[in-house]
């Protein structure tokens, strides 16, 4: 029954009712910033869309799924230990894996691993801090592991079906992140919202993540094979 309630809340007045809107704002922010950069800078790069377009498209979709979770967690500020650990681990692992995977696919394992690890650890710590040191540690470990694992997976798939695997990986991560939204709802449905904010943080995070990813993908260092 609670999943039906969650579905109802996606159109309700709680933070869950803002998730769809947050995805929209994140997507639009990322697409606009990429569009601007494409028009002024990337367009002149030979074979830009065939080389980077697919991966940039999917990393933007990935960020659009991570950002609403960040907003949902921020709305409740504090969570119980078990829930907070799960939050830190899932956000750290998923964001690290996806960032590492898509950068690893274009720039190689080292830069993909470092970038994925940085994003994963940063978001893992930030989100995990809702339950104190346990969540922070969980976020750190998951971000570290996810980042390197994502880059490694991409590099190992280069001579196989990398693009098809990207779609499958994205779908699985989307299901996991959506499940996390549901879990947070279950953990907090009896609580009052602690933080009411506008979409400034959604836009800023989407902008920073998209910009950093695109610039590193196009202008960042590469491994010898790339």
């Amino acid at each position, binding site marked *: 029954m609670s999943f039906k309630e969650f579905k109802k809340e*996606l*159109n309700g007045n709680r933070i869950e*009712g803002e998730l*769809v*809107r947050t*995805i*929209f704002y994140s*997507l*639009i922010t990322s*697409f606009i910033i990429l569009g601007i950069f494409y028009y002024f800078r990337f367009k002149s790069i030979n*074979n830009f*869309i*065939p*080389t980077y*377009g*697919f991966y*940039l*498209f999917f990393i*933007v*979709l990935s960020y659009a799924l991570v950002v609403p979770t960040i907003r949902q967690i921020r709305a409740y500020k504090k969570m119980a230990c078990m829930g907070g650990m799960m939050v830190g681990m899932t956000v750290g692992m998923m964001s690290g894996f996806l960032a590492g995977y898509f950068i690893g696919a274009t720039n190689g394992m080292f830069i993909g691993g470092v970038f994925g690890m940085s994003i994963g650890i940063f978001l893992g710590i930030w989100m995990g801090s809702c339950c104190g040191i346990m969540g922070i540690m969980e976020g750190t470990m998951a971000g570290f592991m996810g980042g390197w694992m994502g880059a490694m997976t991409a590099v*190992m798939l*280069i*001579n*196989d079906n990398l*693009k098809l695997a990207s779609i499958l990986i994205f779908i699985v991560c989307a299901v996991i992140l959506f499940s996390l939204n549901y879990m947070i709802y279950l953990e907090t449905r009896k609580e009052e919202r602690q933080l009411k904010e506008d979409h400034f943080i959604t836009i800023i995070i989407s902008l920073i993540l998209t910009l950093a990813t695109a610039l590193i993908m196009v202008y960042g260092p590469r491994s*010898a*094979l*790339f």
Partner: protein
Amino acid sequence: MVVSKNTWFGILILISIFLVGFFVFSQGSSVAQNNIDPNKEFQVVKLSVEGGSYVMSPSTLKKDVPVRIEADMTKMPGCSKSIVISAFNVRKNLAEGANTIEFTPNKAGTFNIACSMNMYKGSFTVLEDNGSSPVYVESTSTTTGPIAESSCGMANGGGCGCGG
């Protein structure tokens, strides 16, 4: 029927994904191509993988004469397409249409060729200036001495573990 605000946002999300996706996918994917200079003289070497090892034919090369390795992509499984010849700073991902590697062997000896994960291995020899066999043999991190017989573990009944 009243359509909620979030339903409209959902529709807008799908439309924006469709539009951007259409733009990205309509541009196609990059196709690798060989960049061959027809006027240059090369020693042409055929490369394939047999029993987990790289096989180069011929495997003996002249020093200071440019080499063009032409890989048989039907016999290059998994990660064997990512070639590394560290002695001559050669690193390349081979693909259909981009199956050649060009370099100039400017030192004599027996050198290693391996995949980027160091699973598929092989070797070739660059002769001295006077055509004699070289003394130098490049060592590997996993084997000692000449590696002409080295192979991926799977050739000996083990598992390669690199997608090959």
